[in-house]
């Protein structure tokens, strides 16, 4: 098989398996490690109510990076992205509506 031919095939299959360069993986890994270190450091600083907020924000960012790059969602079909979004939407519903109960409990009777 000629070189050119192989190349054309590669271009066709691009949507199915995008090849992520080792450099990208290394960068993401670095970002995750920095995130972990920051989380540990921040937990020693007393920021009051902001402690959990910061910890959660970092955790969410890290999760997003993993999903987008390590799990290849960034390079996947629209259907795959929709599937991921459905999961996130359900998760937000769970958290949102449960929190709505906790917040409004303090309002007493109506």
């Amino acid at each position, binding site marked *: 098989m000629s070189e050119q031919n192989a190349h054309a095939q590669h271009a066709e299959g691009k949507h199915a398996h995008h090849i992520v360069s080792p450099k990208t993986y290394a960068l993401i890994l670095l970002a995750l490690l920095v995130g972990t270190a920051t989380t540990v450091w921040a937990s020693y600083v007393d920021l009051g109510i902001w402690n959990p907020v910061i910890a959660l924000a970092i955790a969410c960012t890290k999760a997003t990076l993993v999903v987008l790059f390590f799990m290849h969602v960034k390079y996947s079909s629209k259907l795959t992205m929709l599937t991921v979004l459905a999961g996130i939407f359900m998760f937000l*519903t769970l958290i949102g*509506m*449960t929190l709505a*109960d906790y917040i409004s409990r303090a309002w007493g009777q*109506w």
Partner: protein
Amino acid sequence: MSESTIVKLPDQSTARIPKMNYLSKENGILSWLLTGDHKRIAILYLISLSFFFFIGGALAGLIRLELLTPQADLMATDTYNKVFTMHGVIMIFFFLVPSVPATLGNFLIPMMIGAKDLALPKINLLSWYLYMAGGLLALYTMATGGVDTGWTFTTPLSTHYVNTNVLTTGLAAFIAGFSSIFTGLNFIVTIHKMRAPGMTWFKLPLFVWAHYAASVLMVLATPVVAIAIVLVALERTIGIGVFDPTKGGDPILFQHLFWFYSHPAVYIMILPGMGVISEVISTFSRKRVFGYTAVAFSSVAIAIFGFFVWAHHMFIMGISNYAVLVFSLLTMLVAVPSAIKIFNWTFTLYKGSITFETPMIYAFGFMGLFTIGGLTGVFLGVSGTDIHLTETYFIVAHFHFVMVGGMLMAFLSGIHFWWPKMTGRMYPEKISQLAAVVTFIGFNFTFFPQFILGTLGMPRRYASYPPEFQILNVFSTAGATILGVGYLLPVLYLVWSLRYGKIAGNNPWQATGLEWQTQSPPLTENFVKMPIMDHDVYDYEWLEAQQEKEKEVASA
């Protein structure tokens, strides 16, 4: 053959079961235990599900026997708690959730969309093994002392107070949950990726639409209950404190997590059944399902709305009054798509040429009983009436109407309807019609009195009750024995028919689905050549034209 039936069996003196089929392909126990064939896995599920159903049924028999008299005299009260808990756990996690999807769905979805198998055959087999592992673990826990929290594992009871086998039972449900996630995932991928040429979304049988919606629920909701169970386990073993107020936790949080799964789970249980009913009603009234698109989308609507109503199980548990208001309103809404289905099936019957074969009798049972079950659900969704009715026998009656009157009827309807396809032989019609009627009568005797008991205030989950409730309880227990006969009969005659039933031929019901256009029992590859969907779904005229053509070819 009489006028009142559409069955068109081949000439029995010459008819043969095709030599090559998925059952005869390979022999030996290993060829079953290591199979990747969706049809064989469906049969494995059918056998194991029936086994668990009869264990759950025996426990139900014990409950009804205890309730025959007002005193707790048959068993100790804490034994009674274990019996109803194990009844619920086995029936819900090991029978109702997998019932139709794992058997009929597994067998039929690939055939209906014109595929050779599910997209992920090994995962399919794995999900059966997980199911068995979970089920056997549940039985093991039962043998070693059982558990008495109720199937809902409610905290703080489950985390702080009881010392029965909460952990192992939880683990059993956890494992079964993954079995269900894998099944759902497999169906979603298969329906997206494996449809035959010409099989567009709006030519899919409604059975497939219903399973698609149920699969989305399985994949999105089940992980939450898995997490909830893990949290209970961690709370019990190392006291992490998420459900413990003294450590800043909240026991009601467990119920949020649990019902976030378990309300959608009731739709996991009913949607596949609704799919069966659509196929059966259409076939036995010889008409396209009225409002096909509305029925298809109502499945999707049920799946979506089903996620927003969970707190209606917690109205009196101490959640905020405002949350009660919102969830009560949303609960009213979720009844709408179910009603759409009932109305559309009724319109399908209108001016159809209806015949009363067994699957149709079960389907009629479904329509009546599910309607009552669904409507009483609305009573419970109204927060005011719920305060009176919750935790009484009214709830017990409500969910048995939807789960037993609805889902179990649909399951039996579907098993009878596709039995000729699965085995190549007919079940005996007269006795099975009798069984269907016996089930219906037994069901009503068993569960209708419980609505009255509930409104009178008899609480659920107690072994004893005030003597004035006895008459209705006797009715209920008597009905349960009739119901038991109704469920034993099919086991006997279906097994009998494996050997002595009439040869069914490809399409005894003259149905239009692709699964009926191939031999019974099917080949391992389902179709000789890849089918092409060149006609509309439920197109009975196409079927007639097709058969005319075949006749001409044969006579030429």
